[in-house]
């Protein structure tokens, strides 16, 4: 009897449902782009380009997803990323040691996570305010480090550019008959590893499940014996750490530090999480969804550019539209579900 019971298929959870919707929409959208625009969209390199350009956004979005599942928000992630890029470039230019630069990146990210997390969790200050302050602070620090853009030496840039993974069977044959392999930057590998690690943490880790618990109902989580403060603290620490990693990946991609780096990245990360099915109210979300959320967001941008609307505001407008569309879709889907339950 208990076996028969085990075989009952449970309906999709809200998290799974929203994620499935996002993945489906992404596939349909990409398929349509292939049909309508052809060209670049028919080559796998198009996807890899999107990934190459947005590896750091994916990493930051993962961190933000964790914080949002726990019912919080962190808007300092873009500014921290920018600070890390600037610091790492300047540090490398002085010391020439890339390993230490990577450790510096992680250190800065962790420091922001620890301090912001402590203020939010142990002193009970609104996360929006704390991370807003963190954002201004990090942006200010970046400018203090250098008003002018700082570049890595050319030979280092070349070296970094050389670390690429080439996948010949996903490439295409150029006009002159040469096979051009698909190229994936090392940052993408890091991003994918982060996605997998965060997925495992959220799905199977005690800490990960505790994030869902405090986001679902904080009082209940407390009554269930979960250390709510520590759990919330950890969500910001992990988010900070990922901002640090994101900064380092950003640097490997661009090779230059600039005070305006990663401007608006936090908003893109929030948008990615939401499109991927993470609710701002907490307790619902999934990092795989976030991954596809980023892809959806950036594919739309690609489509906009391809259709000749090159001005930057078109991208903002479509991003806004997308966000509205997904939020509307989510509230309709979840609303109908709730009604059915009754």
């Amino acid at each position: 009897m208990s076996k028969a019971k085990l075989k009952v298929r449970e309906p999709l959870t809200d998290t799974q449902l929203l994620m499935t919707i996002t993945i489906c929409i992404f596939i349909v959208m990409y398929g349509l782009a292939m049909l309508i625009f052809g060209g670049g969209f028919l080559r796998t390199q198009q996807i890899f380009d999107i990934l190459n350009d947005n590896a750091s956004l994916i990493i930051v979005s993962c961190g933000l997803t964790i914080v949002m599942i726990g019912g919080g928000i962190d808007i300092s992630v873009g500014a921290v990323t920018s600070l890390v890029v600037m610091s790492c470039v300047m540090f490398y230019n002085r010391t020439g040691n890339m390993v230490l630069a990577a450790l510096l990146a992680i250190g800065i990210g962790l420091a922001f996570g620890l301090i912001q997390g402590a203020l939010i969790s142990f002193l009970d200050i609104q996360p929006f305010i704390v991370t807003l302050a963190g954002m201004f602070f990090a942006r200010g620090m970046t400018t203090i480090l250098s008003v002018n853009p700082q570049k890595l030496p050319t030979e280092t840039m070349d070296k970094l550019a050389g670390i690429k993974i080439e996948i010949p069977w996903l490439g295409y044959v150029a006009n002159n008959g040469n096979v051009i392999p698909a190229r994936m930057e090392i940052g993408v590998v890091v991003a994918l590893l982060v996605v997998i690690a965060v997925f495992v943490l959220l799905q199977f880790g005690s800490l990960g499940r505790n994030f869902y618990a405090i986001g679902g109902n904080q009082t209940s989580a407390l009554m269930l014996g979960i250390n709510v403060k520590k759990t919330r603290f950890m969500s910001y620490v992990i988010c900070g750490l990922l901002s640090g990693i994101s900064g380092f990946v950003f640097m490997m991609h661009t090779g230059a530090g600039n005070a305006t780096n990663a401007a608006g990245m936090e908003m893109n990360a929030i948008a990615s999480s939401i499109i991927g099915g993470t609710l701002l109210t907490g307790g619902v979300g999934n990092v795989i969804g976030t991954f596809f959320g980023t892809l959806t967001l950036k594919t739309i941008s690609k489509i906009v550019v391809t259709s000749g609307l090159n001005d930057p505001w078109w991208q903002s407008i479509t991003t806004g539209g997308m966000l509205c569309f997904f939020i509307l879709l989510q509230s309709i889907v979840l609303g109908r579900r709730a009604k059915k339950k009754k």
Partner: protein
Amino acid sequence: MQENVLLQMRNIDKSFPGVHALNNVDFTLRKGEIHALMGENGAGKSTLIKVLTGVYQMEKGEIKVEGNKISIHSPQDAQNKGISTVYQEITLCPNLTVAENMFIGRDKKSFINSKARIKRANEILNKLGIPARGSQILGNCSLAIQQMVAIARAVDMNCKVLILDEPTSSLDDKEVNMLFSLMRDLKSRGVGIIFVTHFLEQVYEVSDRITVLRNGELVGEYLTEELPQVELVSKMIGKELEELSSLGESDEKQSAEGEVFYEAHGLSSSEALPFDFSIKKGEVNGFTGLLGSGRSESVRAIFGADKVGGGTVKIKGKKVSITKPVDAMRHGIGYLAEDRKRDGIIAELSVRENIILALQVMNGMFKPISRSEAEAFADEYIKVLNIKTASRETPVGSLSGGNQQKVILARWLLTHPDYLILDEPTRGIDVGTKLEIQKLVLKLAEEGVSVTFISSEIEEMLRTCSRLIVMRDRHIVGELKGKDLNQTQVMKTIAGGEA
């Protein structure tokens, strides 16, 4: 006898600023016993429970579990020492699975084997006969099941003392029975259960023993079978029996002969089917029927609380349009919502602010009520309705349920309504306050206010209403008055037997 004692609380003392909440209270729980803890609001039940669960620290006294003196510092600490509580408001996470809710926060492993958890959860649920699966999302289960999952969690944590705090207030009869059989099962396994409830019938149905508290003091401990219900009530409210029963007889409810105040033909809303309804000046009538029969929906339609569908409404013979609550209020209609937490009180605001709320809305934004005026109003009604609050500036959220209800009542009385709709005004509040509210309803009617009263307790309706409208499956199926107003007749009409 003595070795059977599971939990002993002796000489417990606890004070709050201005209130001596517990005064030298003893409480004893034996193995395999369901022990009802009874008392009015403010009697000290909640305080006693909170001392036992480590939410409050007692000032004097001692707690022994199985003969060993213990001290309890926090709810977690209490759980570890075998004392678990299941609260009225479910304290589980609705977005997690049943199995997760049963095990989260308990083991210290970094990674979870969710298959093993679900299997283990299913075993426990099966053993206890709880119809749920470990893999279900908790939020998809009914409230009753959620409560049982909370109990299952407690049982699996080897709880010896299980405290059920108003577990039945949001359950229907079938679910209550399910819960009771689970309670009896646990009892046979030797768990001691402390059962806190306002439903007297339920106390007599499941409990073995009753401890009564009043005003922070112990009144006594009784065997349930030896304590008649009427006596229990009188012990709880500390009034003599005659006074209690006199209320039942004194109201020679004359059907008011006055003019018709409110009249509706074919009134409907997004939630209610078309119905006809009228009430005279100074009349008290009521809607009755089972939960979900449409009684609340109908009165909400009268107040314009849901989207109005159609029909004509006349007030004092004049045709009017009521499409939203503020229209109804302008025509002198007041509405006390069923769910006071959701529709009624604003917990963070003070007693004073909550009381003047409706009057302010009616006056409009540009005629503010002065502070001194508001204070005078608040003081007056705190006195008239006997609201137990530290001061008029106390946040309403910190008052007990019955007193919150009185605050809302004061809010509407302040607007001097001609017609007051009370939807379950006495649910979840103690016997004494119930009687006070019933008396108040009758007094209002004498003063010429029309009142529509809804209550799940038919007895209470019979005591106050001169006319009962009976609903079944969202239709009005009968109207009872005069000598037809008795329990049997009401039951028959609800059930659909011929009159």
